[in-house]
């Protein structure tokens, strides 16, 4: 009788993994607890242990196979030794090419990208890392610090390889001490260095929010223009997958509320590069809100090492004439999916604006779009009360009141702490269907 060993989910956001190494051979006897394989996830390379004992009947994937979906069988274990199974060294069962090709276009990781024939298509994770590295090569004052950024290679592998290239003077592991190391970085910025502070997630920035707001954002003003704070606070923001209330919240409107801070949130590898480079070069404190689920997103980039995206400039991700959707970060992708459905099912031509920069906000692009479409829906992951969408509602009523053909609809996460259960989590977060429904509503369909 055979038991299947499935590709395990080894991180909250893992949807697939790479088989880096088999530590057992076909025919080999294994006991529960034996390490049988090394699997590379979106975050790290992990060892997989056998749960049952028996004999390895078949290895269904070979070493080096990538993008194997979670829960796909990777090996068969039989309870009894089958004399027909010989111990084989390298003769692996050919993995299904079809399977791999099918998943290749979806989320992937940095290693895999190197094999991609299209050199200019990289992941968000790699785009962020490359930009940090490029700017660190150019400017010696730039350094990065945070939890697990150096030896561990980044909790989300964003800083992979930076320690090797730049050494421990400039790639610095900190203790779990956000208030302390954020304040330290702010002091270093006052004195002329350019720190990049990685928060393992922005949830932990709350431990340090006094230093971000009272020190980093206000000192230029309080010193009559003498002391600026060239610093970037970056890390994943918003919901990941089932990490519940304390680890899933969107800080965009929290930080965008504060004069003295600039707040940006990329949605693609391309704008991640342009916005991050701009952030590092900006003499002001910048909050750079990444999204964990987007780290594996692949996209084309410009290889120009001076490519920047100016803050306060939105990107029209899709032109349209019937309704404006204003969004940013991960919700851009849900909005584009919704736009596709609306086109196909309701013949509505949607304009999708990716804000990119939340403070300063590109009011001109929003207003011009509303003047063209006369309808607007805002889509974001933050809570509804005093959100980015609330500010846009204010902007539009003030500047394009007479152009509106329907009340504005604001789509946000539910006004509750993030629940753990996946079913409730789905209800909490804005979904494509919610966007479709709202756009139909402003079109009175």
């Amino acid at each position, binding site marked *: 009788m055979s038991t299947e060993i499935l590709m395990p989910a080894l991180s909250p956001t893992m949807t697939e993994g790479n088989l880096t190494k088999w530590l057992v051979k076909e025919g080999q006897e294994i006991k529960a607890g034996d390490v049988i394989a090394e699997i590379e996830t979106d975050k790290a390379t992990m060892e997989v242990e056998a749960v049952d004992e028996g004999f390895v009947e078949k290895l269904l994937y070979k070493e080096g196979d990538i993008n194997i979906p979670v829960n796909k069988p990777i090996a068969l274990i039989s309870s009894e030794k089958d004399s027909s199974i010989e111990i084989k060294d390298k003769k692996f069962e050919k993995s299904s090419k079809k399977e791999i090709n099918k998943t290749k276009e979806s989320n992937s990781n940095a290693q895999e990208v190197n094999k991609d024939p299209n050199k200019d298509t990289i992941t968000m994770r790699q785009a962020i890392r490359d930009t940090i590295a490029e700017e660190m090569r150019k400017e010696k004052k730039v350094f990065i610090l945070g939890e697990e950024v150096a030896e561990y290679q980044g909790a989300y592998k964003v800083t992979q390889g930076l320690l090797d290239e730049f050494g421990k003077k400039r790639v610095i592991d900190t203790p779990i001490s956000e208030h302390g190391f954020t304040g330290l970085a702010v*002091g270093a910025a006052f004195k002329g260095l350019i720190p990049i502070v990685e928060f393992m997630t922005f949830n932990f920035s709350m431990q340090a929010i006094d230093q971000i707001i009272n020190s980093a954002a206000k000192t*230029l003003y309080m010193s009559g223009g003498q002391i600026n704070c060239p610093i970037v606070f970056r890390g994943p923001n918003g919901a990941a997958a089932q990490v519940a209330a304390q680890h899933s919240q969107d800080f965009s409107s929290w930080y965008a509320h504060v004069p003295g801070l600039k707040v940006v949130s990329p949605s693609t590898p391309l704008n991640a590069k342009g916005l991050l480079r701009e952030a590092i070069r900006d003499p002001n404190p910048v909050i750079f809100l990444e999204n964990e689920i987007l780290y594996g997103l692949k996209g084309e980039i410009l290889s120009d090492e001076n490519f920047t995206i100016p803050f306060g400039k939105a990107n029209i991700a899709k032109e349209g004439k019937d309704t404006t959707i204003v969004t940013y970060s991960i919700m851009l992708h849900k909005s584009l999916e919704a736009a596709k459905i609306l086109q196909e099912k309701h013949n509505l031509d949607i304009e999708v604006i990716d804000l990119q920069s939340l403070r300063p906000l590109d009011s001109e692009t929003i207003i011009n779009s509303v003047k063209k479409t006369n309808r607007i829906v805002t889509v974001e992951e933050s809570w509804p009360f005093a959100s980015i969408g609330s500010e846009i509602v204010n902007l539009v009523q003030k500047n394009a009141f007479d152009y509106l053909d329907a009340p504005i609809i604001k789509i946000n996460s539910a006004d509750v702490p993030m629940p753990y259960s996946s079913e409730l989590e789905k209800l909490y977060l804005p979904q494509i269907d919610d966007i479709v429904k709202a756009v139909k509503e402003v079109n009175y369909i």
Partner: protein
Amino acid sequence: MKKLSKADHLKIFSYMLKIRRFEERSAQLYGMGHIGGFCHLYIGQEAVVVGVLMTIKKNDSVVTTYRDHGHMIARGLNPKKIMAELTGRSDGYSAGKGGSMHMFSKENNFYGGHGIVGAQVPIGTGIAFTHKYNGDKNICRTYIGDGAMNNGQVFEAFNLAALWQLPVLYIIENNKYGMGTAVDRAAAGSHLYKRGEAFGIKGEILDGMNVYSVIKAAEKAGEYVRSGKGPYILEVQTYRYRGHSMSDPAKYRTKDELEKYKNSDPIEIVKEEILKKKIASKKELEKLNKEIIEEIKSAVDFALESNFPSSEELYTDVYI
């Protein structure tokens, strides 16, 4: 300790006196409504900052709390511009946007003036980090009130400074009260400097009413930190004659306690030393006092004649 010259003694005396006279005048201007908001006076604590001043190098950095007027004077900053800031004028160090608690002078390596208790400690540690990063052999002196010694970020900063061997000298100005709460009602354990021991940070306690003991300890501690051995803590025992801020009647302490400290007034100690060593006569010291009074008067005149910031200034210096 290096032997102090006659000029050194007079420098000490005049700086301490200048701080005293400046603060007395600040209290008066506060009463007259020219200074608003929170205003924390340094009267009684002069020996601390002036003692440290005698050991400081030009490119060393300083960061302190909101009780910062005396610190700025001791850093050699212009009393006119300090007073202009206190009175909210455009000629102030922060162009009238900082006020008493938030004053800075980048060109003099003075990094504030911080209004949030404890916040200056990680910041000062970060400035020290920069000195080490740049390899410039300068150090950062970071002042801490006794009240901040119960604030979590202070210990996070201590840990980082010890872990990374940063050139930071922490100077605890223990004036016995965090606002109205006596140290022994706020801090568990014995001496505050001993809280560095957990991180392997050496430290000592000293009499902060006597400037000569401050100089001696600050010199030794400064050399220790500059030599690359990492942080060091001085707990300087001092006393503020006035309340926590201008609006504090200081009813939480006895008159006797205040008198006791006034009887060992830090300026009197220096005066006696100067007279004893015949560095200057009583008459000469009185002349110096009059000159300082005039200097502070002219600072007040300068401040009150200075313009308030123009309305356009409301929106400048938010970003550069």
